[in-house]
C-alpha cells in the first residue's frame, strides 16, 4: 500500500472519470479484447482459495437442490456451479496447475464471447449470491464467492445486463449513490425527513462516535426508516451523525461486478467514518453492503478498520444487552396470527448473526413463528445480489419467490418481519404480484415505534 493512510487521502475528485466509460468503450472493443478483459477481471484477486474451489467440484449437482431458481423452475441451467462454467473453463486454461497442458492440447475449448453473453442471465438474473449452495456443497465450494469473481469478468467484458444495473453502478461512482443524488440534496433530504417526522437529525457533524449509513432506496421509498434510525440513535444517547460524504451503503457496483466502483464506495464510507472518529459504523438493513464493509473493506483499503462495523440489528441487540435500549412490548394482534421473520442471507448465513434480530424481536415480545427454513438455512427472498435491480428478471424472481411465499403461508403468520431494505422491497413486490395479503414490516421501524421513553428526549 502507499504511504498515505486512506483516511487522509482526498475524496474522489468530482472530475474523476467514472467506470461507465469503460462499459461504454467496451461495446466497441473487439471481441478478443473484451474476452481478454473478462479473463483479466476474473483472475485478478484470484488466490489459492478460489483455486481450491475450482479444483474441488465433484459435479455432484447438490447445489442445484439448494438454489431456489432451480428448485422452482426445474431448469438444470440454474444449477449454481453451472453459472460459472465458462470461468471454470477459463481457469483450467489460464490459471490451473495443468493450464499449460489444457492450452497445449486444447483439452478445454477457449471460452467465446457468445458463451459469456449466454451466461449473462445465469450470472446476474438468476443468482442472489445468497450462499445457500455454498452451504450444501460437500466440497465446501463457496459458489457465491466465485459468482462474484465471475461478475468481475463479465463487467470487464461489458456484459452487465440491461442499462439499469450498469447505469446505477455508474451513478454510484459519480455521486456515491446509485440514484445520482448530490451531497447537498442528500443533506437537504435528511434534514427534511427529520423535520417531517419530528426527530432530531444529525448530519455531517465533525465528530461522531456512531455513523449510520442507509440505502438511498430508503431515502425515496422508506423515509420513515431513516427517521427510525435517528430516533433509535437519539434514544440510546449515542453521539452520532450521518455523513453525506459516506452515506449510501448500497454498493450496487459490487453486485454489478465493477471493482472500481466497489472500491470507491467502500473507501468513501471508510474515509468518512474515519474522519469523524467513529467507533461504530452501522450498516443499514441491507445485505451485500454489510458483508462488503464487515468482511472485505479492511482488505480493500489495506489495513484494519479503526471502527467496528455492525449491522443495524447487531447494534440494536448490543444496545439491548447494555441496557441502553428500552422497548415496550408490542400489542398482540387481535387475530393472534403472530409474525414470522425473514433472515437476510448476508447477515444470517454468511456472517453467522441470526441471533441478533431474534434478540430484538424477543425484546419486542413478538409472537415469532419461524419459517421451516430459517437462520443459516433460510431461502433468499430472490432479490439479492442485484437481481432486484434487473427489470427483465422480475418474472423469474417471482417464480423463485414462490418458495418463500409458501413457507411464510405455512407459518400462518400475518406479517413478515424483514431487516433488509432489499428484502423488504422484494417481499412487497412478490406479495403484490402473487396477490397475497401478508404484511411486510421492518424490524427497525418496529423498534422505533416501541421505544420506552424514560423522561429523556421525547
Amino acid at each position, binding site marked *: 500500500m502507499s504511504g498515505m493512510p486512506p483516511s487522509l487521502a482526498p475524496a474522489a475528485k468530482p472530475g474523476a472519470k467514472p467506470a461507465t466509460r469503460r462499459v461504454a468503450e467496451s461495446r466497441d472493443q473487439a471481441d478478443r479484447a473484451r474476452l481478454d478483459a473478462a479473463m483479466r477481471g476474473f483472475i485478478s484477486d484470484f488466490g489459492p482459495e478460489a483455486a481450491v474451489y475450482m479444483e474441488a467440484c465433484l459435479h455432484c449437482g447438490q447445489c442445484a437442490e439448494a438454489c431456489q431458481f432451480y428448485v422452482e423452475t426445474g431448469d438444470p441451467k440454474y444449477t449454481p456451479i453451472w453459472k460459472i462454467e465458462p470461468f471454470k473453463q477459463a481457469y483450467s486454461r489460464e490459471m490451473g496447475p495443468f*493450464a499449460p497442458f489444457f492450452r497445449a492440447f486444447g483439452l478445454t475449448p477457449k471460452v467465446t464471447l457468445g458463451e459469456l453473453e449466454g451466461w449473462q442471465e445465469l450470472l446476474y438474473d438468476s443468482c442472489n449470491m445468497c450462499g445457500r449452495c455454498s452451504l450444501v456443497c460437500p466440497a465446501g465450494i463457496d459458489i457465491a464467492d466465485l459468482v462474484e469473481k465471475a461478475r468481475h469478468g463479465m463487467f470487464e467484458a461489458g456484459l452487465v445486463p440491461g442499462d439499469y444495473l450498469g447505469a446505477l453502478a455508474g451513478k454510484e461512482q459519480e455521486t456515491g449513490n446509485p440514484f445520482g443524488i448530490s451531497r447537498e440534496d442528500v443533506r437537504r433530504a435528511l434534514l427534511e425527513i427529520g423535520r417531517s417526522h419530528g426527530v432530531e437529525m444529525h448530519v455531517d457533524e465533525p465528530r461522531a462516535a456512531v455513523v449510520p449509513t442507509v440505502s438511498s432506496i430508503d431515502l425515496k421509498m422508506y423515509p420513515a426508516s431513516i427517521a427510525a434510525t435517528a430516533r433509535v440513535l437519539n434514544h440510546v444517547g449515542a453521539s452520532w451523525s450521518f455523513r453525506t460524504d459516506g452515506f449510501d451503503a448500497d454498493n450496487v457496483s459490487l453486485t454489478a461486478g465493477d471493482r472500481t466502483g466497489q472500491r470507491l464506495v467502500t473507501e468513501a464510507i471508510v474515509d468518512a467514518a474515519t474522519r469523524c472518529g467513529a467507533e461504530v459504523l452501522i450498516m443499514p438493513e441491507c445485505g451485500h453492503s454489510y458483508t462488503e464493509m464487515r468482511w472485505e473493506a479492511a482488505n480493500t483499503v489495506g489495513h484494519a478498520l479503526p471502527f467496528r462495523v455492525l449491522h443495524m440489528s447487531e447494534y440494536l441487540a448490543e444496545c439491548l444487552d447494555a441496557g441502553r435500549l428500552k422497548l415496550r412490548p408490542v400489542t398482540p394482534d387481535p387475530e393472534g396470527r403472530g409474525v414470522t421473520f425473514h433472515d437476510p442471507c448476508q447477515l444470517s448465513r454468511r456472517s453467522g448473526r441470526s441471533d441478533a434480530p431474534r434478540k430484538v424481536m424477543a425484546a419486542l415480545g413478538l409472537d415469532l413463528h419461524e419459517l421451516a427454513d430459517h437462520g443459516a438455512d433460510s431461502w433468499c427472498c430472490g432479490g439479492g445480489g442485484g437481481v432486484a435491480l434487473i427489470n427483465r428478471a422480475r418474472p423469474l424472481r417471482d417464480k423463485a419467490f414462490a418458495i418463500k411465499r409458501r413457507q411464510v403461508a405455512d407459518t400462518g403468520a400475518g406479517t413478515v418481519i424483514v431487516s433488509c431494505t432489499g428484502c423488504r422491497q422484494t417481499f412487497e413486490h412478490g406479495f403484490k404480484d402473487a396477490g397475497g395479503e401478508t404484511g411486510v414490516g421492518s424490524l427497525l421501524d418496529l423498534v422505533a415505534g416501541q421505544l420506552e421513553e424514560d423522561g429523556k428526549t421525547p
Partner: protein
Amino acid sequence: MKPRDTLGQKLAGYGISRRALLKFAAAAATSLALPPGVAPAIAESLSGARRQSLIWLSFQDCTGCLESLTRSDAPGIERLIFDFISLDYQETLMAAAGAAADETLVRAARDNHGKYLLAIDGSVPTAEGGVHSMVGGRTNMDMLAELAEGAAAVLAIGTCAAYGGIPKAAPNPTSAVGIADLVKEKPIVNIPGCPPIPEVLTGVLVNFLTFGRLPDLDDLGRPLAYFGTTIHDQCYRRPYYDQGKFAHSFDDEGARQGWCLFELGCKGPTTRNACASLKWNGGTSFPIQSGHGCLGCSEPDFWDKGSFYTSLSGGEGPPWDAVGGAAAVGLGIGGAAAFAARRSRAAVDRQLAKEWQRDHGATATSKTEEDGP
C-alpha cells in the same frame, strides 16, 4: 514280441499279481483325475503295454529332481513303472562310465529312434555357444538338438528344464533357457517343481504307456491333471483365508492356530501344482502344512518375483526416496504452474492499477503491491 516285453509279464515275473496291478491302476486313475471306473481298463492296457525306452539327460541341474524321484524311502508300486521303463541312459544312476556310457547312449538312441522318451532335468546354457555345461566334450545344446530329433516326446523334468529355473534367475550369466525354448518340433511336457512331485512323472508315464500319448497340457505345457488348480484352491488352510484369519508372523498365535499364510508371502494363489493334494514324502506333508508358505517353485521365474515373504498383493512399490522424488518433481511443476499464474495475475493487477491511477490519480491506495510476486 517277446513275452517279457509286456508289463504284465514283467510284473508276473516279479510276483506282482493282477490285484496289485489293479490296485496301482486305481491309484493312477486317482492321481490322473480319471474316473475311478477306468482303473480296470488302465490295468489291462498297462498289462499289455510294451517296454518303453527312456533316455535321461542331466544338464545345468543340481540333481535334486532325480533325488526327489528316486529317493522314495518305501518304494511304492510306482517304483515298478520305473523298473518297467528301460532307463537306457542316466549318468547318475547307470553303472557304465566314460566311453562305455557314451556308447550306451548312442546305441539306445539308434535302436529306439523315433520311439524313445527323452527326459531332461536342468536348464540349457546358451551363452558363448553353450560351453558352460558340457558332457564328454559336447555342449548340452548339441546333445539336446541331436537326441530330441529322435525322441517320441520330451519330458522337461523340474523347473530348470521346464522354464530355466534358478540358473535363469537374474542376472542369468549363462543365458540359461528351458527346453521349450530350444525344442520346437517335438511334443514337450513340462513337469515343473523344485523338485517336481514324483507321482506326477509316474502319472505322465502311465498316461503315455496306457494311451500312447502325452496327457492334456495347460498353456505352460504342464499336465492339467496335476496343474489344473492352484495350491490355494486345494489348501486345507483355505477356510481361514475365506474367514480373513491370517498368521502375521511365523511365531504368532495365528501361525500356531494354523491360519492362512497369505500374509507371510504364500504364493499358493498363483501357483499351480498338486502339492496340497498329493503331498510329499509318501503323503506326509507339504510346505504349507509344515508352516511355511508356498514359494511358487513350479511357476516360471519364481526366483525373480521378489521376496518369498512378500505377500502377493504387495508387489514391488517404489521406495520412499522415489516417492519423495516424485513429490519434489510435483512440487517443481506445480510451483512453476503457480508461478506462471502469479505472473499473469500480477500483469493484470499492474494494468488495473495503471488504469486506476489514470482514472483516479492520487486516490490510489494501491492494493496491488502487497501481494507477493
